[in-house]
């Protein structure tokens, strides 16, 4: 568990989190002064514009307001950080997308964002002064009466609106997934190259949201206005923003636009910094000086169950395989005393295990798809979906026999497909849990290497326990599906089941590339020949995965013929998984070609089954 006591949390994660938050706080005054520079904009009196701006940024009230905004965005950033995850979530249907966004913790986050948006806008109103700074102003005509300052109200409400939109889109578009860049640049240059595009992005996003907000305020604006006027016993007679003509106030528009852009930029910049700091490569030590620190070492961390740490470990392995000759040498070295290649064996077995687990899952999925198809021919049911993958999911439960098959296979009937925890739509870094409980496959690919300990990959029987409630629930669901809206919400999204298999295949990509790079470098660097002995196993694992993937993509091309769905609930967060899937295939091919090109015809000496032999020959001739 990534509990409170995990060393990575203490020694790396908190520091990185702290640094990212500190930098976002340090850069806050810069962003606010730019904002003030633009709000004070006056082309006719540039001298006053500049001096006014300089006076304003150094005044005591500005410093106080900046501190308040700083506190607010600090907590916003801190909270967003809590929802981060490394593997994207794949939703089975639209209902699961809605449920995912409306989880209590996420609703709480939305509420916080709304509150913080409103509060920040209140502070920004303080900078602007005049009728933007307070909710109640003196009416123009008579000195005695108090009126509602609608400009201020509109600003605060815009902040609330932006907060809600930000929170929902953050989860809907999968912004909470931490992705790792392919090149490792210095943070300074990353931030530098981020600033200008992000500025324009904030401006355009704010403009877009402002358009919708104006519409909303025009239609529903009387509700908060009336409520406030009656509760605060204000003068009803004057309302400044109740007609289209009155709303065409350029200054108000300009302030709202800039304030929205600033808010957008503050939030997104904090997320960006967090991502930069945490997607950085952490160099795990290769050797521990004392036995107690063994768990800190790379080979131990590779087998950890905490996804975030596992990602970091494989990222580091990939990095060292590609770039660090010194650390590669350590992997190729022999143990003292004894002269065993323990280090290489540990690293390589972890990688091969990971690759084999994916191969097994794919084979199980294909097997299930095939059995689903054949059973569907035997028991055709009413209301079949055109979609092939959906056939498996909906029809297989109509018959107990199929039902049994489905449960023995790797399917789960929870709302979202997400690994490692299937029923969880997301995992925070704090509660990233145990390893995937997907059940073992029917037809397992058996790698024929006996020299290494190979534990059964991902066996967990907990899925098989509660059959009757699930069955009842499914029949009830079938009845509900007669309704059109329910049918729309429950219609399975295309190839969701396939995407679910690939949610964390970034790990597999790193494992493949690292193995390939280590094997290629071993040609000139491995002085003891430790890698040579394992090349057949590695090659076999890769070829098996290659076959399974080829088959999978053939199946996918059949599914895709039925057309793609394109609405807001069926997209985005899971498209990244589809790209990961393509990426995996590409890097597998490149890795195989790399090994084959390095060792060339020597590989013919390896004993392989005729099918693999043929494939190897084709790869050698660059026919595949």
């Amino acid at each position, binding site marked *: 568990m990534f509990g409170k006591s995990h060393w990575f949390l203490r020694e790396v994660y908190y520091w990185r989190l702290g640094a990212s938050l500190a930098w976002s706080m340090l850069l806050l005054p810069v962003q606010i002064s730019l904002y003030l520079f633009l709000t004070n904009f006056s082309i006719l009196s540039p001298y006053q514009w500049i001096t006014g701006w300089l006076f304003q940024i150094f005044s005591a009230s500005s410093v106080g307001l900046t501190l308040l905004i700083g506190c607010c965005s600090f907590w916003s950033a801190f909270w967003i950080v809590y929802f981060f995850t490394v593997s994207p979530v794949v939703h089975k249907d639209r209902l699961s997308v809605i449920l995912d966004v409306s989880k209590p913790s996420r609703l709480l986050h939305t509420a916080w964002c709304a509150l913080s948006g409103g509060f920040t806008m209140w502070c920004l109103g303080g900078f602007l002064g005049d009728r933007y700074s307070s909710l109640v102003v003196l009416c123009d005509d008579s000195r005695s009466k108090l009126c509602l300052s609608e400009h201020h109200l509109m600003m605060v409400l815009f902040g609330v609106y932006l907060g809600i939109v930000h929170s929902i889109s953050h989860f809907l578009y999968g912004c909470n997934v931490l992705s790792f860049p392919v090149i490792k640049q210095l943070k300074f240059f990353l931030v530098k190259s981020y600033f200008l595009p992000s500025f324009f992005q904030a401006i355009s996003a704010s403009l877009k949201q402002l358009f919708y907000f104006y519409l909303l305020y025009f239609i529903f604006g009387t509700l908060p206005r009336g409520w406030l006027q009656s509760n605060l016993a204000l003068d009803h007679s004057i309302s400044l923003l109740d007609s289209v003509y009155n709303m065409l106030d350029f200054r108000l528009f300009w302030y709202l636009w800039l304030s929205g852009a600033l808010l957008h930029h503050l939030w997104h910049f904090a997320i960006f910094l967090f991502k930069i700091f945490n997607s950085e490569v952490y160099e795990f030590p290769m050797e521990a000086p004392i036995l107690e620190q063994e768990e800190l070492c790379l080979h131990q961390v590779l087998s950890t169950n905490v996804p975030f740490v596992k990602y970091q470990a494989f990222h580091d392995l990939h990095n060292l395989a590609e770039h660090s000759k010194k650390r590669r040498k350590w992997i190729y070295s022999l143990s003292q005393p004894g002269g065993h290649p323990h280090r290489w064996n540990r690293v390589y077995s972890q990688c091969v295990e990971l690759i084999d687990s994916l191969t097994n899952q794919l084979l199980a999925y294909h097997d299930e798809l095939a059995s689903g198809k054949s059973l569907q021919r035997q028991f055709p049911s009413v209301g079949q979906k055109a979609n092939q993958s959906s056939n498996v999911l909906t029809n297989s439960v109509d018959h107990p026999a199929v039902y049994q098959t489905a449960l023995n296979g790797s399917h789960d009937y929870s709302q979202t497909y997400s690994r490692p925890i299937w029923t969880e739509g997301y995992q925070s870094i704090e509660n990233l849990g145990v390893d995937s409980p997907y059940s073992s496959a029917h037809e397992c690919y058996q790698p024929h290497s006996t020299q290494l300990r190979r534990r059964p990959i991902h066996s967990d029987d907990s899925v098989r326990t509660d059959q009757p409630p699930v069955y009842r629930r499914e029949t009830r669901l079938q009845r509900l599906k007669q309704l059109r809206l329910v049918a729309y919400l429950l219609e399975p999204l295309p190839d969701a089941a396939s995407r679910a298999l690939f949610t964390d295949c970034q790990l597999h990509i790193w494992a493949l590339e690292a193995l390939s790079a280590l094997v290629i470098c071993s040609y000139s660097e491995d002085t003891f020949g430790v890698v040579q002995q394992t090349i057949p196993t590695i090659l076999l694992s890769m070829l098996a995965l290659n076959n399974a993937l080829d088959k999978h993509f053939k199946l996918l091309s059949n599914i895709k013929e039925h057309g793609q769905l394109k609405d807001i609930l069926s997209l985005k967060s899971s498209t990244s998984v589809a790209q990961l899937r393509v990426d995996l295939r590409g890097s597998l091919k490149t890795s195989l*070609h790399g090994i084959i090109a390095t060792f060339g015809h020597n590989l013919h000496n390896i004993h392989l089954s005729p099918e693999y032999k043929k494939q190897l020959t084709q790869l050698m001739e660059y026919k595949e």
Partner: protein
Amino acid sequence: MCSLQESLSPPPFGMVTVKEHNGDLITKNEKEASIHETAGLQGVQLPKVVASTEILASLAIDESAQSAFLPNKGDIPFWKRAWYSCKEHGMSGMLEEMTDERHDVPWPVSSVAFSCLTAIRAVSSLQGSIYPHMTLTRDELLSEFSRVRDWEESEIRAFAWHPHTSKCAVAWENDSVKIYSAESDVVPSLKHRYQHGVTCLAWKPFSAAILAIGCQTCVLVWHLDPTSQSTRPSAGSAQVLRHVSNSPVTTLAWDPRGRLLISASPWDTVMMVWNVPREISYTLGRGGGGGVSLLQWSPDKTRLLAATPTSIFRVWETHHWTCEKWTQLSGRLQAACWSPDSQILLFCSVSEPAIFSLNFNNMKPGVAGTGGAQTAVKCGDVSTVTFDVDDEEVRVGGLIQDMAWDPRGERLAVLFQKTSDEDHADNLIALFNTRLQPVLELIPCGFIQSESGEEPQLISFQPNFDKGALLTICYKSGKVKFLPLFFISTQSLNEQSRPPLQAQSGWTHHNSLELYSVND
């Protein structure tokens, strides 16, 4: 430093160089040479590149449909016209329209537009005085920064060998790209709506058939099936990688392990590092230089050369992606090539007839950086020299258009820029014999004479030719000539003279060992 004067005199006009045999360039007269060419190259299979005689109407049409219509200025209200010109030609187009139509437009609007336009022009002329290439039109830019000598006129616009097989891609003048393979007669022809103004091609290393094409507006990555018999792969098998500011793409580089693709444009200071399957780009670059005109990845993947259109070039180290900068070149860097061990960079500038070398063996342990030497060394002088051939004076040499170094680092071919002098033999390609150990040495060994009337446009070496080196010359007429250079490499000579490896160094190397395999 060597000079072209030390070289053997060029073959007389009418003779054609057909091959190199252990250091001697063998020439034949044109009739014999054509027979020699058809007879083949001692069992080496090569693709047959035929200049396309069929008329292939390009999908990307040069002429827009708009040109068929006359502009109508009479009835349309001015604001509508301004809106159209804003859509067609952008902001500056709209301003021009406003300034031109003074009698239609209220005077404050036209005067504001006029002052805006003047300001824009002043800024762009200022920028143009710092970076002259910014003022070029797109076509001028492409022909200036393309590796082809005469991009506008040449039939062949780009050429690329597959890094592992005997397969090559040729971009033709009509914007189609064709793939020629030695093993198959099927010639797939690639066309795409965006495939316009092709300047560079790059095959992905360690892949069967993935080809990146640099176009005027984007990068296209074609995923081809090597076993397919189809001659027209569908446009669906091409990925379009597009970035707003990064166009036109004039140089592309795959990293030698085939993971990343980098594209660059002379108009954009940043390069785009693409994760191709995910279609994500990462920006990479430093200010200064005005753009990136040439990218060359060192064979060991640790360094990347990025030349700019000004007299600056940078070399990036590819671990932390930091760079070192070399300045004070006499002009922009025109061509460059890495030695096979990635320790030496040969380059030349656009305005000086010389070859420079830069060493990269100064890596200090523990210090990140490229390990490059402070200054480049002039190692070859290729300024114009005069030879007496058959009582005729032949002038050879001058500014360099392109250089190609064979993958073993034994031969360097140099293509010269076109000159306007009548008596200048700028169609000769100079060939140098190169030695890397103990220090870099360039030895001029002769000139390659082409058939009369043929102008060489592009040169490159096949990456996997095992009998020496195979120089490929693309001509303006669309002809592609494969010139074999048969020689015994220094490396294999050294290996023969040494005692067997096992005896010499025990465990340390197992290049010649058989693989140890495990039986289960």
